[in-house]
């Protein structure tokens, strides 16, 4: 079969794989709830697999000058630009995982405080303090990482020798490591900008997988931003302009809509991040605060039992975070490297196909 036919077959296969992979992501096994740490791992794996196939189709055994002609002279540079934006998101999200880890550590205090038998007043007080800090950390104002709820209740001392500014300043325990005016929401927005599905003849040629890969990249970055707290997520777009007729896109769009719904619900309440473990942690912290607030030794047996169950669940979540967060950062780093490499390859291709400038 000739190269053109082979190419069409490859493209079709690629898009089938995409569809399959996203279908799998849509119905995760029980332990890997949508937007949980391990689900995010799966998402990143899907990205890496798709990207590898994509590169193989576009670059391997291809004459570079082919990709310098229209419409590729526009499509490839656009792809490269989106890749750069994705890199910044990777960095921001990796940084955001640190703030999740911060919550993990706070939860450790709660666990160690409440994992006591018998439970004393002191333990409960300690746990309450930690829960408050935890909730405060989770309800971070995305802007510049400042705490919205002052946790003044959780510590207090006089003003001698310390001025208020110092106090306020030292609460900003997690300032984002990204540029001041950088906004993850705007970044995603600008990635979506100008995303147009190929039409007519282009739809059955190479522009098609390019479009597919663009959509995948945007989706993955978007999901990461939705899950993990990072700077300025206000105004995160919830709609992707991907035509429903596209076969390969069905699962992806379904997934996107599901997540977007969750996002819209949470957005109104002021939010930490859709990360499944964080969501669960928030609920548990809330009920534990209620518990510790009303606790007096020896406490109501039923409530104590309930609290113990909550602590046990919290332990489990802690465990998952403890196991999964550092690998998640490493995984994001892997994605980062891959995108860099891919961009370099495409830059090379562009360079080879065009006149040199000295």
């Amino acid at each position, binding site marked *: 079969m000739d190269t053109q036919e082979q190419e069409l077959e490859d493209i079709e296969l690629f898009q089938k794989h995409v569809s399959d992979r996203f279908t799998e992501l849509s119905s995760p096994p029980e332990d890997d709830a949508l937007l949980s740490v391990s689900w995010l791992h799966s998402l990143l794996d899907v990205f890496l697999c798709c990207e590898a196939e994509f590169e193989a189709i576009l670059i391997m055994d291809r004459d570079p000058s082919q990709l310098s002609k229209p419409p590729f002279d526009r499509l490839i540079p656009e792809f490269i630009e989106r890749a750069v934006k994705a890199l910044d998101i990777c960095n921001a999200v990796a940084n955001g995982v640190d703030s999740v880890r911060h919550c993990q*550590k706070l939860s450790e205090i709660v666990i160690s405080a409440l994992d006591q038998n018998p439970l004393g007043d*002191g333990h409960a007080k300690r746990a309450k303090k930690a829960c408050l800090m935890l909730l405060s950390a989770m309800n971070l104002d995305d802007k510049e990482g400042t705490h919205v709820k002052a946790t003044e209740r959780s510590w207090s001392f*006089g003003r001698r020798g310390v001025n208020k500014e110092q106090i306020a300043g030292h609460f900003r325990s997690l300032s984002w490591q990204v540029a001041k005016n950088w906004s993850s929401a705007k970044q995603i927005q600008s990635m979506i900008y100008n995303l147009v599905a190929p039409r007519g003849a282009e739809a059955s040629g190479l522009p098609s997988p390019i479009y597919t890969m663009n959509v995948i990249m945007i989706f993955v970055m978007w999901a990461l931003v939705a899950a993990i707290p990072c700077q300025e997520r206000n105004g995160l777009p919830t709609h992707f302009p991907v035509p429903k007729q596209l076969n390969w896109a069905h699962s992806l769009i379904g997934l996107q809509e599901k997540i977007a719904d969750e996002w819209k619900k949470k957005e109104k309440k002021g939010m930490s991040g859709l990360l499944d473990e964080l969501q669960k942690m928030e609920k548990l912290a809330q009920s534990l605060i209620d518990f510790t607030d009303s606790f007096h030794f020896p406490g109501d047996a039923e409530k104590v039992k309930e609290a113990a169950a909550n602590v046990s669940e919290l332990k489990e979540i802690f465990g998952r975070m403890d196991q999964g967060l550092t690998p998640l950062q490493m995984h994001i780093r892997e994605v980062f490297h891959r995108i860099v490499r891919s961009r370099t390859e495409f830059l090379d291709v562009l360079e080879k196909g065009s006149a040199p400038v000295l």
Partner: protein
Amino acid sequence: METPENNSGYESAEKIILRWDSTASEEGRERMIFGTDRQEADVYLQAVDEIQRTLFSASISDCSHNVDADDQSKVNTTIQIAMARLEDEFRNILIIHTSALEIDSLFDSSTSFSSSTPTHHELEDDEDCISDDSGSSRNNLLQLHHCESSDSSTYRTSSSIREVDLMPAEAICDLQAIAMRMIAAGYLRECIQVYGSVRKSSVDSSFRKLGIEKLSIGDVQKLQWEALEGKIRHWIRAARVCVRILFASEKKLCEQIFDCVGTDIDDACFMETVKGPAIQLFNFAEAISISRRSPEKLFKILDLHDALMELLPDIEAVFDSKSSDSIRVQAAEILSRLAEAARGILSEFENAVLREPSRVPVPGGTIHPLTRYVMNYISLISDYKQTLIDLIMLKPSTGSRYSGDPSTPDMEFTELEGKTPLALHLIWIIVVLQFNLDGKSKHYRDVSLAHLFMMNNVHYIVQKVKGSPELREMTGDNCLRKLTGKFRQAATSYQRATWVSVLYCLRDEGLHVSGSFSSGVSKTVLRERFKTFNAMFEEVHRTQSMWLIPDGQLREELRISISEKLLPAYRSFLGRFRSHIESGKHPENYIKYSAEDLETAVLDFFEGYPAS
């Protein structure tokens, strides 16, 4: 067994703790324990210890059912109150003694121990800036700066970490004492939390003072390279301060405070404090390492590479725990990307030289901007020899055998045994440059000018090679010999192209009418000869005064060479045949010039006079 009830030591301790409970008493809120009165602090700590002891012994004898659960709860409560208080005290001590480092002095000291005196090695394009049609808006003729330290060995000076005392010893003692109690009571995590949050904001503010920007990768890609060069320079200095002083000092502080409790804890505190800023620091270098490759970036990238390389042992020393793996790894990754970038740029440069497409011939046959640019560039490369020799590991890929491809030159690798890959690249670049120039020379309509052009440019290459000992040593004598031969050849070809036909006018044959000897000279032919000679010479004079040989010595030599052939021939011709002309009408129409006139006229050649 001592129960809380019948232990007065416990009771008084409990009283002390409760007195300082800031949630309960006004007094507790107003003052700090650790502040003014040493005694207060000691008393408090003793009280805490007492409670701890009680708790400990109570828990041991838990199985003896003598212990009242109520009592135990009370003790726990007291401990919690004490810990909450200690946490506040801990935080307070940290905050009070957190002062930003004197950043300016740090900068000075850091540059001094890297012993770099800023020298400014500026290679400019002197002489005429003749633009060609490749007309990119960017200036083709780069000013290649080699700032800050042209001596690449400064980047190899041995590193020195300089820890600074971030806090007075007394404060550290207090912090240690508090930490010990908190950890003994199981409040380790609270301790780390507090420590991390206060110290981290201190590091953040030091970062701001050092002027370390938070730039995204997107930002870096958009900035002009010139602006980035400044930022790179700044980053190098700031990074040295960060790693060697700032981070190292934070590490030391952690070790001092948590000394007695184990290395895992002080590692955890250190990473809590420093991880974010460290990543932020390296992100900039990473952004540079992945920027689009273009030739002018090579040298700053090498500077960054060298600086990071030099810093690497310090990075490994400061970030030596398992939890800081990712930072070490990132630094190594960046280093390797920078090396890759350098290689890629060099390769791109070679390709660009080969395919540089400008066709408009340089007026006057003088030095082509490409020649200047390339030779400046490779002179600078040879300055960076020390770094590049390690980075460039493969010989150039094109031209390694006779490829038969007419669009690339061939290169003899046999006689280049024993040369480093870097040297091979330099030689290859020169080969490629000549090849390109050859192609350009063919665009001159006048073949003489084409030869002159080649002569000028190859001569320039020779001068540049001779002018750089490093370059000369790497390219080798053989290369130099070949180049010299080439430009001499071009000079010869030029002369042949121009002067053979001119001198042809002064030949003997065809002048003599068959038969007699002395008076058998055809006056008509002779007059024609003179006329033709004059016309040709005038034309050559007119044209070639507009041509240019920039090198004074070469210009002289060529003129002398021309004169040596022209003048004797003319004198001899004049001598033998002037009488025939002078005996006829209007001799001045034919004998326009004396030999001296010609001699003077030759002085105009190659002066690059503007068209009149």
